[in-house]
């Protein structure tokens, strides 16, 4: 009782993509070639297949010519597979009777010989025509979406994304590695170009995070594991012991006064090491959560077990708890916003600028703390040797736009260097020099800010600084740092002695960006920042559905852009959650029971434990709900009894046959 054999009627559509494809591939030749292939009923070329009329063409042909298979030769399936599946469905066909051939990214854009490119297009179209014959009707499985969202990173990007989502009524988990949220922005004094106080605009947002009923804030914690898929992620968050109970601590800081270390002697990370702290500390007054934390590498009790533990005695709430252990929390979320931020370039990697050699060479972040009224010097610009600088040189592009460090422009350094020039001049009255390669001020009110600085009498020297050292050429230079630079506007090499050098360090990916990328199953670009799905049209999406990007982990950007992107990421996450469900590619594997020999070789191969062995039948069986569709078991099955929808053996073999046939 075999089914009547269906006559295969294929429609082939070759897209010009304007001249993107037609410029290198002879599209007419491809369409003609396809029209002669067995089973092809209609073969056309068209200017833009993805346009409405292009899609309409497919719909009409399905009706008029009773087509039951569709092949479109255009761009990458990662771009338009869904578009044409929808067009196929509109014509009344099951969308999986369609196959897309990539003759743009994989052909016209990468080849230079028209004949070779056309031959390749023919071969690929041939393969698709062979392949679609064995396509089957499939349906997408719908899975409900968990409405909670995980936000990773509590800088301004993570804070803004978390608040946006929480305000929309979604449950948000905000996970931050440091003891406090706030990120780099919390360290800044003023923000360019408006010179409004960073703390004044950030700290209210930080406290909203803390008090928001929809946000669970876990600081001093890291995501250690993530499983599942879009809409249904299972996440493990590891909470490091801070040895202070968050539920009891009120942030009175009595314990800090009571610590057996009478003097604060350890560099405070928040002050870039310029300020000092004790083993028990609160990073800065507005830290959120305002809960003390004990540094396990410094605390005598944690290190040796021998301490009076005067901190414990001092806390009348009994919040200090040395028995704390790392704790794993399991959560379920539907979407993840990755906002892990950046790392400032390590200025020691450009030894010509003497950072770490000469004490009066500073990084820009250190100077942010120096000019900050709540910083280690209360805003007084005082050098490490106690002097007040009379001349200051600010060097742009340190670790940016350089062949042997980082090639990219870090986007914010010109503007923050201008800001620091203004602030240093304002705080110290010093004469300030800016050394720049190009002045990059493309933002709202940025150029105006530069003009303002010019009028304020800050000096600007156009040229890449060659070196900073203490090489004295005449007695007046004694005790100074000498900046040597080619002034490209004067056309001469200059020696400029200064008291203080500020290095405008660039932005780069975190040292562990690769591990984080693996954790979330996303990609990094060549420079190491996380890769967005499309640089223009999907800038906050990643190649893994349900994982979104915000802020500098995706690339250097300033605060307004970071906030805008965080909003976009939150909106994408909301769109996903509010759709209520996700559709999964029906590319799962299944076992043809009568052919399975019960050898069990597939069982240990599945990373998702989707395959089990049924003892009484002596057969393997695949749980479709757990299968992610990699096909590894299919490739390994010795009796070819496992099949993968959309990638059946017969479909791949016919593709091989097609690409190797003479064209």
């Amino acid at each position, binding site marked *: 009782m075999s089914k009547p054999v269906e006559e295969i009627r294929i429609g082939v559509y070759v897209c010009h993509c304007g001249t993107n494809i037609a410029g290198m591939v002879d599209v007419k030749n491809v369409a003609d070639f396809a029209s002669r292939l067995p089973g092809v009923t209609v073969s056309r070329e068209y200017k833009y297949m993805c346009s409405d009329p292009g899609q309409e063409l497919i719909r009409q042909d399905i009706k008029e010519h009773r087509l039951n298979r569709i092949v479109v030769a255009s761009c*990458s*399936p*990662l771009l338009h597979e869904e578009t044409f599946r929808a067009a196929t469905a509109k014509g009344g066909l099951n969308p999986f009777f369609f196959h897309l051939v*990539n003759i*743009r*990214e*994989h*052909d016209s*854009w*990468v*080849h*230079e*010989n028209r*004949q*070779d*490119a056309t*031959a*390749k297009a023919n*071969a*690929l179209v041939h*393969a698709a025509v062979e392949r679609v014959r064995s396509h089957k009707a499939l349906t997408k499985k719908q899975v409900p979406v968990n409405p909670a969202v995980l936000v990773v990173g509590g800088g301004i990007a993570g804070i803004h994304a978390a608040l946006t989502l929480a305000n929309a009524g979604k449950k948000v988990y905000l996970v931050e590695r440091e003891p406090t949220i706030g990120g780099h922005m919390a360290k800044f004094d003023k923000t360019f170009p408006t010179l409004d106080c960073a703390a004044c605009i950030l700290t209210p947002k930080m406290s909203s995070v803390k008090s928001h009923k929809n946000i669970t804030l876990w600081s001093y914690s890291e995501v250690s594991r993530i499983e599942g898929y879009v809409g249904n992620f299972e996440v493990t968050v590891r909470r490091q012991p801070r040895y202070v109970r968050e539920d009891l601590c009120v942030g009175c800081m009595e314990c800090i006064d009571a610590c057996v270390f009478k003097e604060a002697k350890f560099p405070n990370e928040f002050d870039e090491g310029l300020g000092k702290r004790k083993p028990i500390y609160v990073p800065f007054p507005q830290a959120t959560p305002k809960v003390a934390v004990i540094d396990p590498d410094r605390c005598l009790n944690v290190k040796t077990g021998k301490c009076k533990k005067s901190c414990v005695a001092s806390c009348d709430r009994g919040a200090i708890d040395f028995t704390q252990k790392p704790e794993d929390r399991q959560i379920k979320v539907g979407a993840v916003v990755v906002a892990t931020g950046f790392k400032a370039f390590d200025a020691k990697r450009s030894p010509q600028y003497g950072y770490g050699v000469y004490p009066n060479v500073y990084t820009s972040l250190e100077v942010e703390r120096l000019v900050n009224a709540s910083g280690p010097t209360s805003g007084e610009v005082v050098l490490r040797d106690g002097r007040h600088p009379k001349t200051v040189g600010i060097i742009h592009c340190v670790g940016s736009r350089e062949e042997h460090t980082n090639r990219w422009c870090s986007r914010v350094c010109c503007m923050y260097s201008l800001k620091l020039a203004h602030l240093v001049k304002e705080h110290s009255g010093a004469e300030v020099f800016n050394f720049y390669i190009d002045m990059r001020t493309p933002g709202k009110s940025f150029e105006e800010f530069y003009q303002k600085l010019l009028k304020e009498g800050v000096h600007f020297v156009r040229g890449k600084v060659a070196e900073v050292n203490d090489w004295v050429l005449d007695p007046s230079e004694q005790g100074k740092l000498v900046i040597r630079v080619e002034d490209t506007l004067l056309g001469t090499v200059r020696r400029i002695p200064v008291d203080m050098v500020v290095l405008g360090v660039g932005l780069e990916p975190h040292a562990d960006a690769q591990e984080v990328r*693996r954790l979330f*199953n996303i*990609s*990094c*670009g*060549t420079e190491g920042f996380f*890769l967005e799905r499309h640089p223009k049209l999907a800038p906050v999406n990643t*190649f*893994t559905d349900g994982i979104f990007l915000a802020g500098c982990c995706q690339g250097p950007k300033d605060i307004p852009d970071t906030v805008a992107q965080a909003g976009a990421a939150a909106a994408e996450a909301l769109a996903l959650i509010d759709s209520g469900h996700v559709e999964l590619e029906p*590319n799962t594997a299944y076992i043809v029971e009568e052919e399975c020999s019960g050898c069990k070789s597939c069982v240990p*191969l599945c*990373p998702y434990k989707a395959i089990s062995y049924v003892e009484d039948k002596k057969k393997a069986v695949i749980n479709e709900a757990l299968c*992610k*569709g*990699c*096909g*590894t078991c*299919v*490739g*390994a099955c010795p009796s*070819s009894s496992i099949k*993968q929808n959309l*990638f059946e*053996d017969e479909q*791949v*073999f016919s*593709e*091989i*046959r097609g*690409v*190797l046939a003479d064209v």
Partner: protein
Amino acid sequence: MAGAMLNLIMENQTSTNGTASGFEPRIVAFFCNWCTYTAADLAGVSRLKYAANVRVVRVMCSGRVDPQFILDAFAKGADGVLIGGCHPGDCHYIEGNYKLLRRVRLLHRMLRDMGIEDDRFRLEWISAAEGEKVKTVINDMVEKVRKLGPLQLPQRFRDGDKELEGEQLKAEAAHV
């Protein structure tokens, strides 16, 4: 005018034969959806230029690549087979690429025994960001296979069959 004609003829000749040497390798590639296929897309978006000899078959994971696909490609006339997967540790499906690697190790040995040179079968880890690597790997492989010359398994199979047939006929004749 005659010169132009001659040029035209020459051009046609080179196009039908491929290059002047007359051999253009045919290479079948299996690229995983998440890394190498995406990298090849990136190569396209970046307008990198590479040899047009490779035909890509997309699979979700390099772990899907069945040794039969490779043998079948050679049997159907491929001069080389290339597999592209995610770097170790980066597999979208955790470790499909490792599972492929095990098969590839064995298959390499088998192909060697069959007289198929190592350079005809290659596995490369190419991440989504490595468009440049797609270009260098393809160009390098095309050059290496070009040097090895055509594999022509289908033709060799036919010749072998013919020979066998001849032997059989001879044997039958002797028997008679």
